[in-house]
């Protein structure tokens, strides 16, 4: 991993070129840089807001788009009530705005697209995993990836039109779509696709509670703990 570790670049401007809702509480912001966004699947950018008097607030947001040759990338941001940055992004930012960003950052929770990966995401934790799924599909490497996504209800599913596919297994914990065969329940061992591919690495992302529960399920299913990488989304609004 060290060879790919980025030295986080200085702040640069990114222009918002599109905004679209994912759910009632999440929006995807598409940004354009002046040069290629050299990110890896799983990394994040820091977004910094600056007030006229110099006060700043910055938060990290996972990149949802696959690495490609484009100067554009996407961040999906959940609106956290009271969150200084996420509420501003949701309520005030419009297409054409320029925001300061820094990154891409992170060298651990990263999939390089060339080894088997089992992705397990809860709620908003699907964002960096979506970058991995998109990378796999874009490079015709979908066979390497299995994705399990846990959401409370169908309305909570990000990328609903795109995420379904042969790689993806959806888990609903509170309410399912009509005629969905699996009853609503928390992630369990039977939800984990098996057998594991040789050399598989698991990427778990979600709230801390989800991450611990999902890790326990993976270990119970036979995944060695040292093969599990975890990213916990905290309430850092």
């Amino acid at each position: 991993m060290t060879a790919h570790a980025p030295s986080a670049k200085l702040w640069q401007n990114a222009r918002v070129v599109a905004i679209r809702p994912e759910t009632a509480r999440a929006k995807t912001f598409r940004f354009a840089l002046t040069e290629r966004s050299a990110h890896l699947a799983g990394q994040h950018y820091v977004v910094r807001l600056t007030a006229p008097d110099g006060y700043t607030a910055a938060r990290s947001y996972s990149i949802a788009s696959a690495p490609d040759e484009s100067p554009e990338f996407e961040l999906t941001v959940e609106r956290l009530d009271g969150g200084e940055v996420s509420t501003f992004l949701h309520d005030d930012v419009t297409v054409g705005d320029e925001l300061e960003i820094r990154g891409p950052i992170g060298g651990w929770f990263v999939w390089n697209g060339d080894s088997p990966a089992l992705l397990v995401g809860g709620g908003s934790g699907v964002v960096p995993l979506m970058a991995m799924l998109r990378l796999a599909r874009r490079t015709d490497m979908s066979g390497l990836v299995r994705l399990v996504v846990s959401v409370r209800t169908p309305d909570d599913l990000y990328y609903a039109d795109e995420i379904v596919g042969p790689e993806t297994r959806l888990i609903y914990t509170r309410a399912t779509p009509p005629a969905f065969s699996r009853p609503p329940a928390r992630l369990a061992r039977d939800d984990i696709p098996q057998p594991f591919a040789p050399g598989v690495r698991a990427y778990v992302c979600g709230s801390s509670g989800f991450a611990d529960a999902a890790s326990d399920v993976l270990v119970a299913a036979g995944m060695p703990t040292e093969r599990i990488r975890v990213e916990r989304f905290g309430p850092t609004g």
Partner: protein
Amino acid sequence: MARFTRGFAGRGRANRDPRLPPGQYDTGHSWPVLTAEVTPRLDIATWTFRIEGLVERPTTWTWDEMHAFPPSTYSGDIHCVTTWSKLGVNFTGVSLDTLLDAVGVQTNATHVLAFSHTAYTTNLPLADVTGGKAWVAWDFDGRPLEPQHGGPARLLVPHLYFWKSAKFVAGLRVLDHDEPGFWEQNGYHDRGDPWLEQRYQGD
């Protein structure tokens, strides 16, 4: 790039707590959990803490042996690089000064690499873990430290960003050079002073 963000006024800084370093916010009663690995369940019956490397007497202590040292408490603030700070907390454990005195640090030592019972590591200048600035802590606000927060014991170096306070700490390797740890190999700053906003490499 001294420009400002259209429409952003920011909030709350008229009453901003002077204990908050730049770019940090007060997380209040919550304590976010950020761990990159599976939370281990460590048994204090077999738990150990070790100091090795450039010391006169490399030593491994058991849980009970660690608790036989004079207890030491930190009361103050902690700061996470993800921008939350938690103010007015109390940790109790043993001062690293006590442990380093017990093993006898060699004169050519300059840094330590803290390692955990997981694969986690983090690097620190020796000067940042001596002089009453660092602990191995097992109590938080008077109660045993929970596993999600690094229990049964974690390193505590509260004047630096909190990834330096290695959860599930297993020991220190005393070195004569700086050796980047887990996050430091992955883009984060080698020292991590929150008052200087040393978040990432290059800061």
